[in-house]
């Protein structure tokens, strides 16, 4: 039986030390059983490694940063669509998701499909709103507050106590052990990511992550739990192992069914020393370590594409436990002409 061939555009090709999920997503798509693919990379910078990696993107286009506005993005996507006839786009960055969500209807009108969280889901899971989210859905979350003035650090130090987490709205998180450090991190984060800054209770314990996929009707299509085995100084997993923890997977299913989550996600959990799970963060997209999920039997990028195309993939039943992913980096040798072409013409 012949398989359909989909042209899928993927962002997040920055396979650096804090990698975007794009390359891992593409590897999953290339291993899909239900369809063949032509992969169109969408990059923000001409030095994103995924642009040049052999066997990853068939063609890559530069797209404007989210700060340029949705109109500029739409214009660029229309131009790319004219060339490529896109079937699906899989955006992989938190910071770009809002723009793509705003364009979802317009793109659908052009025959370009996505499978993204709803605006409500996107907003209420936000770090800033996490305490309310925990209350609403009966999930343990650490105490936290969003602040816009460094003076508020003093106001909240008693309830949160040191050490406390100081986090940026989009990225970056630091552990502050005293007020001086907290103030320093506040300034560092505001300079890079703006306001607000989130202060969060520090939970002592072990970090676990789950990546999964919700179909928007409350069903969990995929869920794979991982323990970070090796963490970089940016807190990213450089190695991890698939685990089978019923409590963690039940909690994930509860998250999907109660929020009726639509799309890929990553739950960042902390298991406290007394065995309780705290939900630290919900990332509303596929994580960079998704290839572990593919490798243990749950091809999340493939299932997400099927959902985007209006199909109803069956939920994955199980996955292999005790499989590790170990990330590595290597140096590619790239011809200057390729770099020049991409930088000047915006496509390669």
């Amino acid at each position, binding site marked *: 039986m012949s398989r359909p061939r989909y042209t899928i555009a993927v962002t997040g090709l920055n396979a650096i030390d804090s990698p975007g999920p794009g390359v891992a997503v593409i590897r999953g798509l290339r291993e899909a059983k239900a369809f063949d693919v032509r992969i169109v990379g969408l990059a923000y910078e001409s030095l994103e490694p995924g642009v040049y990696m052999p066997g990853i993107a068939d063609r890559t286009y530069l797209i404007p940063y989210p700060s340029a506005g949705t109109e500029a993005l739409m214009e660029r996507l229309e131009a790319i669509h004219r060339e490529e006839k896109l079937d699906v786009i899989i955006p992989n960055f938190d910071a770009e998701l809002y723009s793509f969500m705003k364009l979802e209807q317009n793109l659908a009108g052009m025959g370009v499909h996505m499978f993204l969280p709803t605006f409500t889901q996107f907003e209420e899971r936000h770090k800033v709103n996490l305490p309310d989210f925990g209350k609403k859905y009966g999930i343990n979350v650490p105490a936290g507050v969003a602040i816009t003035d460094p003076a508020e650090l003093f106001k909240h130090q008693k309830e949160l106590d040191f050490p406390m987490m100081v986090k940026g709205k989009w990225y970056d998180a630091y552990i502050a052990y005293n007020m001086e450090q907290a103030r320093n991190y506040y300034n560092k984060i505001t300079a890079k990511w703006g306001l607000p800054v989130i202060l969060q209770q520090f939970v002592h314990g072990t970090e676990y992550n789950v990546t999964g996929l919700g179909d928007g009707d409350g069903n969990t299509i995929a869920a794979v739990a991982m323990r970070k085995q090796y963490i970089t100084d940016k807190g990213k997993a450089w190695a991890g192992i698939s685990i089978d*923890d019923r409590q963690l997977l039940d909690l994930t299913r509860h998250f999907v069914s109660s929020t009726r989550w639509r799309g890929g996600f990553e739950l960042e959990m902390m298991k406290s020393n007394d065995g309780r799970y705290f939900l630290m963060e919900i990332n509303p997209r596929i994580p960079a370590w998704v290839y572990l999920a593919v490798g243990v039997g749950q091809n999340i990028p493939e299932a997400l594409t099927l959902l985007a195309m209006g199909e109803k993939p069956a939920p994955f039943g199980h996955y292999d436990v005790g499989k590790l992913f170990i990330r590595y980096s290597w140096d590619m040798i790239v011809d200057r002409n390729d770099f020049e072409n991409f930088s000047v013409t915006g496509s390669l």
Partner: protein
Amino acid sequence: MKIKQQIAISDTGFLFNPSTGESFTVNPVGAEILAMLRDGKTEDQILETITGTYTVEKKTAEKDLHEFAGMLKMFQIIDKE
């Protein structure tokens, strides 16, 4: 002492707990003790085997076994009694 059912133990003394993702290595004597625990041997039977196989005083073996059991409990390898 009862080893949790889900714990995977290889002959080389490598342990993997699939629910926490933790892994450990034990030396050959540790592996021997774990194998006996898995076979349902009691602490007394294990002590008897150890003192019969190795040149070690019963008191020392008892102390070491107790310490080893404490670690197994701490790392959630055996069920809490």
